[in-house]
């Protein structure tokens, strides 16, 4: 029961919802950049929502399916095909043994998530299957995928039985409405004030929300470097290092902000102008280098309301997917 990597793509790694509880030891959280897409991809194949998936960036891999399986692909549209037929996203797909899954090119978004029913058979390191690329631990041998890697997966909890296929794959008519989870056009990113918001000049605070910021090519899972209006402090004082987290917007002395993301270091010493709200972190994950984002300021109560609203929406989705999936699989 396995998937064989024929070509790895630019950056394909195993990620789950992250390695929580070890930040005090300097261990980064990692995990999916777009946690919502990962969770939905798992719901669609009947997995626990935090099961590990392949996080596929910009140019996807070519993968040979070596056992009949149930998969789903969510997140950015990297033009997936199976045996040269376009594969629809955001729904479960039964795939026949021997099929070739390819990602042809990036149409929208930046990162796709591929899950398989049963989940990948990957040992946990510090209670997570996520790949911590810099320390070389977790995931598949602590690294991004390479050609000839063989990804074993576990027996699915849903009984797939011996199904007959007309072609290489089959899927139900229903699907998840991606518009509710994937922002189109220029990403509007909401934030609450960072711990050192008041240290910045009024002009910097105003231009942070008035201007657009371009995501530089030197952006990765650790953080997005932005260029746009230059941000300045009222006084240039030294700040002692303290905890930072996914979504912290740090401003180094050159005045160009950096949004720390899934592979954020655990502590940092640059002043933080903003903290992106949890509900909007997946939106950033789908912004490509070269594209722009715009910031919008909200208060903590609003951030909490949006977080809980999104969680409720995902919970409802889980219930409806579960019913539809059982019906389709005839369980």
């Amino acid at each position, binding site marked *: 029961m396995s998937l064989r990597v024929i070509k790895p793509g630019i950056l394909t790694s195993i990620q789950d919802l992250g390695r*929580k*509880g*070890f*930040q*005090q*030891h*300097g*261990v*980064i959280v990692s995990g999916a950049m777009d946690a919502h897409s990962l969770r939905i991809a798992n719901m669609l194949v009947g997995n626990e929502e935090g099961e590990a998936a392949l996080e596929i960036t910009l140019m996807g891999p070519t993968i040979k399916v070596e056992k009949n399986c149930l998969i789903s692909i969510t997140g950015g549209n990297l033009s997936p095909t199976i045996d040269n037929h376009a594969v629809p996203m955001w729904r479960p797909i039964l795939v026949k043994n021997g099929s070739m899954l390819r990602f042809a090119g990036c149409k929208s978004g930046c990162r796709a998530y591929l899950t398989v029913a049963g989940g990948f058979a990957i040992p946990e*390191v*510090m209670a997570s299957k996520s790949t911590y690329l*810099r*320390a070389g*631990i977790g995931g598949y041998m602590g690294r991004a995928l390479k050609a000839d890697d063989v990804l074993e997966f576990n027996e699915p909890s849903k009984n797939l039985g011996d199904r007959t296929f007309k072609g290489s794959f089959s899927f139900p008519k229903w699907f998840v409405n991606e518009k509710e989870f994937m922002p189109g056009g220029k990403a509007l990113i909401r934030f*609450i004030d960072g*711990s050192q918001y008041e240290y910045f000049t009024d002009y910097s605070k105003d231009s942070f929300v008035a201007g657009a910021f371009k995501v530089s090519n030197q952006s990765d899972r650790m953080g997005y470097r932005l260029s746009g209006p230059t941000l300045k402090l009222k006084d240039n004082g030294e700040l*002692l*290092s*303290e*905890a930072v*987290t996914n*979504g*912290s917007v740090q401003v180094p002395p050159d005045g160009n902000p950096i949004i720390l993301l899934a592979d954020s*270091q*655990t*502590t940092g010493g640059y002043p933080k102008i903003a*903290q*992106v*709200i*949890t509900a909007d972190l997946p939106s950033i994950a789908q912004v490509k280098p070269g594209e722009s984002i715009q910031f919008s300021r909200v208060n*903590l*109560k609003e*951030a*909490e309301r949006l*977080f*809980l609203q999104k*969680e409720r929406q995902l919970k409802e989705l889980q219930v409806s997917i579960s019913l539809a999936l059982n019906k389709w699989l005839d369980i």
Partner: protein
Amino acid sequence: MPEKLLKKTACTLSPLGDSAIVITFGNGMEYSVHKKIKLLKDLLENEPFAGFIECVPAYINLTVFYNPLVIYKDQNKSNGSETISPFDVVRSILEMKLQDLQEDKKLIHRTVTIPVCYGKEYGPDLEYVARYNDLTTDEVIHIHSTGEYLAYMIGFAPGFPFLGGLSGNIATPRRSSPRMTIPAGAVGIAGKQTGVYPISTPGGWQLIGQTPTKLFLPNVNPPSLLQAGDIVKFHPITDQEYKEMITKEEIQ
């Protein structure tokens, strides 16, 4: 309980986004501040509240990470309210914990000795540090290896200790341009801090030596050799001893 209220620890509580809260106890690297952070951290870890994920100590503050969803559910069970703010709930829990802090309690520190091979290819900046402070390299080694350092925090990289207590006589600013790669085990100085790089990373500290000891142990719990609150001492070793210890580490 007015007596308890009077004892309430002076600090500020502020949000780090919608899923963490920062409790700040002071504004400088001080033992009294470290002590309050450590006491609160121990208290939270021994008696975690529903939704508590973990806390990260730093020089002047403790950041507490929580899951708003758990807190929301937990609160809804008890009062059915729709307007509860997870931040407000955590803040009031923390305020109560702060009242329970026994600040007169003595902290118990573990002492860890780390062997270091100073200078030459192991410490490419040792001579610079000596020149900068108008000392000989032997004097720098002597001062560094007779000091006692407090691990205020672990961060930047897995297992990287931020050690305070470096003598002003060998304090040296960071390099003006950071190195692209620093080998695992490198011992460095930045201002009045010293530390050890547990894994190979880019970095800007002045490198004075290297240790064969592994500071990041991914398959051990906890994965960091050092914890905030540990006392660290450095013990000079020779080139020969370094090589023997490296071989031993590899066999294990």
